[in-house]
């Protein structure tokens, strides 16, 4: 049994112009200790999927259908107070912008201690000792002094280290990291990714790493899920997806893999733009941009089809899928 399973997840937004489907029947799983990279252009539904998993969809967004299972137990329909014992404890989260993730009015130590004490029976003294340990672990110099400082006294990279410490502070089994380096200085992105990778492999923590940096994915992930317009285009082991991508969209993404930290030509290989939620074409959502589109692609929507080591939603692979 996988650590996390997502089955046919649908996330909707009721709006004045009707219900928008931001995530449309997504299925994926993450094994214990595994790093699943999730890539796709901005607006593909990566954050919505991550937020649904940690149970923090912002209203009016809601899970309309589907299931999310942790250790085989459904967690998508838990009341707030039950879900919050899972958040932080079983599933940690890291968000995009470290400059705004920390409460400006509390010291770093206070925020660590608060989180530790929420999930454990530690005394304040023990929790503080643990907080110091964590700061050392994430590589913050002079932790005895830094622990009593406020977020604004830390640089962006240092703050993201604190955020990582907060996400890891009670050893969750899964971390949902939503573009953890996008907001950071290019020169320190690689350091933060390396830190996250090292800590998670040391603790056996699984990671859902959302990013649109294919270079990061290639270096870090075990498997990759490629998202397009709220659906999954392709899932597979990182080697296969990077070297022998199946889905035409993934091919486009792989056009050139930028070196880690250089976000110069990220995802600019494919002509055109991802459709907005309000005008997703019938058939395959990628058909206006796809060089291999056929008449059938304009008419019928390809469902995700199993491959030997993942899934792909593209008519070109119907025959291959039939053999699996």
């Amino acid at each position: 049994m996988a650590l996390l399973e997502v089955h046919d997840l649908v996330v909707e937004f009721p709006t004045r112009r009707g219900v928008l489907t931001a995530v449309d029947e997504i299925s994926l799983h993450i094994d214990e200790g595994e790093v699943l990279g999730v890539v796709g252009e901005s607006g593909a539904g990566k954050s919505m999927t991550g937020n649904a998993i940690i149970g923090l969809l912002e209203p009016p967004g809601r899970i309309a259908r589907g299931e999310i299972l942790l250790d085989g137990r459904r967690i998508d329909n838990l009341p707030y107070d039950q879900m919050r014992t899972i958040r932080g404890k079983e599933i940690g989260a890291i968000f995009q912008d470290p400059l705004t993730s920390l409460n400006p009015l509390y010291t770093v130590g206070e925020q660590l201690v608060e989180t530790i004490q929420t999930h454990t029976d530690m005394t304040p003294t023990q929790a503080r000792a643990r907080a110091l340990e964590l700061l050392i672990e994430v590589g913050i110099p002079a932790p005895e002094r830094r622990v009593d400082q406020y977020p604004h006294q830390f640089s962006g990279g240092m703050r993201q280290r604190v955020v990582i410490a907060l996400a890891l502070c009670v050893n969750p089994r899964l971390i949902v990291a939503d573009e953890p380096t996008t907001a950071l200085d290019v020169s320190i992105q690689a350091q933060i990714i390396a830190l996250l990778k090292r800590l998670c492999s040391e603790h056996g923590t699984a990671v859902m790493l959302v990013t649109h940096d294919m270079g990061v994915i290639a270096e870090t992930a075990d498997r990759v899920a490629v998202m397009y317009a709220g659906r999954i285009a392709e899932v597979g082991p990182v080697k296969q997806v990077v070297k022998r991508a199946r889905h035409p969209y993934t091919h486009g993404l792989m056009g050139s893999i930028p070196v880690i930290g250089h976000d110069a030509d990220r995802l600019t290989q494919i002509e055109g733009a991802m459709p907005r939620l309000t005008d997703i074409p019938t058939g395959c959502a990628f058909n206006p941009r796809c060089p291999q589109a056929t008449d059938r692609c304009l008419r019928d929507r390809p469902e995700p089809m199993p491959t030997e080591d993942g899934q792909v939603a593209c008519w070109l692979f119907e025959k291959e899928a039939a053999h699996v």
Partner: protein
Amino acid sequence: MAAFIVRRLIQSVFVMFFVALVAFSLFRYVGDPINQMVGVETSLKERDALRERLGLNDPMPEQFWRFISSAAVGDFGISYQHKRPVSEMIALRLPATLELSLISAILSLAIGVPMGVYTGLHRDGLLSKVFMTVSLVGISLPTFLIGILMIYLFAVKMTILPSFGRGEVIQLGWWSTGLLTTSGLKALIMPSITLGLFQLTLIMRLVRSEMLEVLRTDYIKFARARGLSNRAVHFGHALKNTMVPVITITGLQLGSIIAFAIITETVFQWPGMGKLFILAIENVDIPIMAAYLLMIALFFVIINLVVDLLYYAVDPRLRIESGTAHGHG
């Protein structure tokens, strides 16, 4: 910290000095003080003698110095109209105004903040909508109208509350308090609601919009992602972040409560400084006007100082740092 307080104190002294200058100019340029003091039958010679005795022929800076140094120790001269020391008259009426203002401020905070938090957290709840609608009334009706309506309802129709005055007061040294007797407390109800209602609705709406704003921030989402309880998120993290604007507005409003007490005091015939001031204007009783001006200024200065100190206590970003962000990465 100490440097910050010293800087604030120096600023305050400047403000007070300037207000004192304005108050002093009142004496010089609004009518002739001698005319105000004596009757028509007083001869020119007597007038000159009085002028000399009061030091009105001395050089301006000397007169001003005399004015501020005596004001600093609470001596504002003699009322033209009542022929009694102004400080004595103020001491007699100050407690009434301060008690009324303070109770109004406490009322508007103690009710406005929780109502604001509630309407912020339950934005679409029925009770929130009721609060918001009622608060519109509080903001749009003029103070005196609410006062008169309440007098009609509770004093005239139902006769459960007194329509005027402070009720029974107890003397604590020079301070007369209405807080220790039932009739004194009863008498406070309507005036303090009238005076505080506007501020209450203002604070409620402010807290509500700040809460809505803060609840959308990343650090609140991250606090939830860390598994903190609703209580910790709402009160520990969200409410505290709304406090800086709330402190600012409350400080400003406390000043205007004291200043606006004039209207409420008139409606309820409350024996406070507001009424004293109005009578003083009618009779061009300059010493009282000058003293009132100085006192209100002093209140504003003190409130501002307290507001700044509260900021300092609440928001670490405002504290002056020796060194910020160290290093990189």
